[in-house]
């Protein structure tokens, strides 16, 4: 796919390097709290160090993270939903209940990418980030289970809980110091031997969970509880970003002792995330993605199911999530594809001769049906 003549490649590189000096790429991270500078439809770069810090490689969709590896940079397009989220995040206040936003849209229109952009935006504003790669991991990818000792009937998920804590720790290094200065509200008695006393920094809870996986699920609950409390007090602002959030009300693959599938409300982590989503706390923003992968049949190649929030969350989930603000992600407009096309040509990501012609530009645009995912896939092979 990327086999072109050596000379040609060299020239194109030089050309690209030359052009790059005049590029419109903006550095979001370089200008914190300056979202007014971001223009809709412009490319913005997230610096690799930040991307690594936020562990975006695992959180981004796989084609984009692979592209990030290949190109050695992460450049994304700032689009309307991102601006909407930014304006909503600006509103967040100590008195206002946690604002709940649901990103919805057709397949491949950039729900996850927008979510990651929002996470990056929260990072630049020094917010605390609770970022879940996919809620489906909690319900469908459960490797080991333990019965909870805290609440009878609950099912703990040590491996996922540790992953959540580790991810939290990695993504919040920028506010780690602040978190270290926040103290626990009460005594936590994890087991007979382990306990966290009142007035200890909440980072200790995280360390506890990471070192002792069998306590991790309860630690997650305690951490979220403390975060909500401190947010209410105005000591921190938090962004809760949950991808595939509708899976919290979906099916599970966890089996109970009687070999029936456990409902998601029996899973400790799901319950903790649901509590975080409930807007009984303030000074935060909950960003959810309603994704079709929970309900759609991947083997049904012809059926087109709905991607609207009520359909995906179900009645129960929908009533839980309400009131929320739906934010739609859409396909590209023509100018957006042109921006990306220019970028890909500049980076020599579009290598073939025919793709670089005017007709090629049009064909890429229409064959992808202006869908961001299809557009990226087509550009990767041309």
């Amino acid at each position, binding site marked *: 796919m990327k086999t072109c003549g050596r000379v040609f490649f060299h020239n194109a590189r030089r050309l690209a390097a030359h052009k790059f000096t005049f590029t419109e790429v903006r550095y979001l991270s370089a200008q914190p709290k300056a979202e007014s500078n971001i223009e809709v439809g412009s490319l913005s770069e997230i610096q690799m160090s930040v991307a690594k810090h936020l562990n975006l490689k695992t959180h981004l969709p796989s084609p984009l993270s692979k592209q990030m590896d290949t190109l050695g940079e992460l450049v994304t397009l700032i689009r309307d939903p991102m601006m909407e989220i930014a304006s*909503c995040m600006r*509103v967040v*206040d100590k008195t*206002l209940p946690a604002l709940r936003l649901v990103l919805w849209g057709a397949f491949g229109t950039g729900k996850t990418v927008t979510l990651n952009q929002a996470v990056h935006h929260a990072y630049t504003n020094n917010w605390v980030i609770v970022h879940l790669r996919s809620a489906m991991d909690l319900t469908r990818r459960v490797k080991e289970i333990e019965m909870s000792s805290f609440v009878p009937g609950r099912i703990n998920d040590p491996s996922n809980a540790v992953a959540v804590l580790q991810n939290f720790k990695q993504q919040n290094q920028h506010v780690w110091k602040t978190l270290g200065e926040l103290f626990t509200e009460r005594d936590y008695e994890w087991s007979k031997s382990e306990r966290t006393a009142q007035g200890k920094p909440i980072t200790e809870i995280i360390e506890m969970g990471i070192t002792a996986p069998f306590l991790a699920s309860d630690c997650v609950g305690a951490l979220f509880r403390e975060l909500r409390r401190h947010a209410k007090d105005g000591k921190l602002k938090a962004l809760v970003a949950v991808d595939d959030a509708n899976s919290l009300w979906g099916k599970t693959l966890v089996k109970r002792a009687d070999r029936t599938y456990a409902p998601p409300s029996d899973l400790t982590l799901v319950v903790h995330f649901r509590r975080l989503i409930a807007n009984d706390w303030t000074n935060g923003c909950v960003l959810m993605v309603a994704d079709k992968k929970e309900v759609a049949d991947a083997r049904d190649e012809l059926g087109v199911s*709905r991607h*609207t*929030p009520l359909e995906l969350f179900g009645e129960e989930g929908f*009533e839980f999530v309400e009131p929320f*603000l739906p934010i739609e992600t859409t396909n590209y407009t023509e100018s957006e594809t042109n921006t990306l096309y220019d970028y890909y040509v500049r980076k020599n990501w579009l290598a073939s001769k025919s793709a670089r012609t005017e007709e090629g530009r049009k064909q890429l645009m229409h064959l992808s049906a202006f869908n961001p995912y299809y557009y990226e896939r087509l550009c990767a092979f041309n």
Partner: protein
Amino acid sequence: MHRLTHVTARNKSTLADKLRSAVGGSDYGKTKQSFAGGSISAKDEQGEDFRELYVMPKRKLRGQTQLEQATGRAEYKTRSRFDLIDRLSERPPRSEEMDPEKQKWSDVWPAARTFAASVVPLPVRMGSRPNPEKRAPFKKEGNLELVKIPNFLHLTPVAIQQHCEAIKKFCTPFPPELLANESSSSSILPISVQYSTYIHQGTNIRDIRSRVVTMIVHVDSLKLSDSAMEKFIRLAGNRYDEKNRKLTIITDRCHTRKQNLDYAHYLLTVLYHEANKVEQWAEMKDRSDNLKVEFEGSSTKTKLVDLIEKAKTAGLESDEKSIEKFGEMWKTYRNSEETVEATREYGRQMKKLLGIN
């Protein structure tokens, strides 16, 4: 056809002589006698009759007669065909005798009938062939293809008009009031019954589909109370169409149409009375048992009111009055099939409500 006649050979045969003499009486014996008196005695020593040697028949051969005819030495005598009477008694095709001006086609072909080439005066042709340039389709005589296909020769415009004229006296005009006002038909005639009658070209007058009866009832005319209406909808299931408020009962389980019609009436009666009954357990109906999701009293409304209050204190320009409008939108959103446009509308209203942007 010319036929060779004047078979002189037959007249000269001995058999003919014998016959002639037999008819004439005396002649026969005379010849025999003369024969006996000739050089060859009629009887030999043993008293047996003389047996002539057979060399050739004593009549002219075909070749001889033909030669005579060709040279003009013999006379020709034409004779009619031996089966002339049979041929004359056979009638030529009826269509050849028809006069287009004088005859009435509906008299010739009054009812449905298989195609008959001798009756239909049209030079119709039919049949596929590999090369249409080289050969025409087969003519109508003896053409099975024309027999196989149906024909409407009995349904010519003239015939149809005659039929209509004939049955006109049995018809009454459609009520003009109903024609004028389409909507009044639902209140004046709330029940309509549909069924189909099938006619076959064959001898069978029955068709299994003719038993099916469809009854359509305008439910408004039943004047049900709200609770009864809800029960009625639940009992009717998918037979009730919410959009045009019509109940459609299709009955086909009995053998005859009359039975099915009675059954449909019975079903309607039972539905009506069952819907009006109030059972004990009906009192236990919960909010979640409602047919429709209501905005009033829903958790969404309480949460929303709470949120708006808090948003107000936070300084957002939330619009309290639009909560009723939002409620209407919410009700339709929850109770109808979700569409992309409906979700967008939901977002717009919610933004307005919270006062964001």
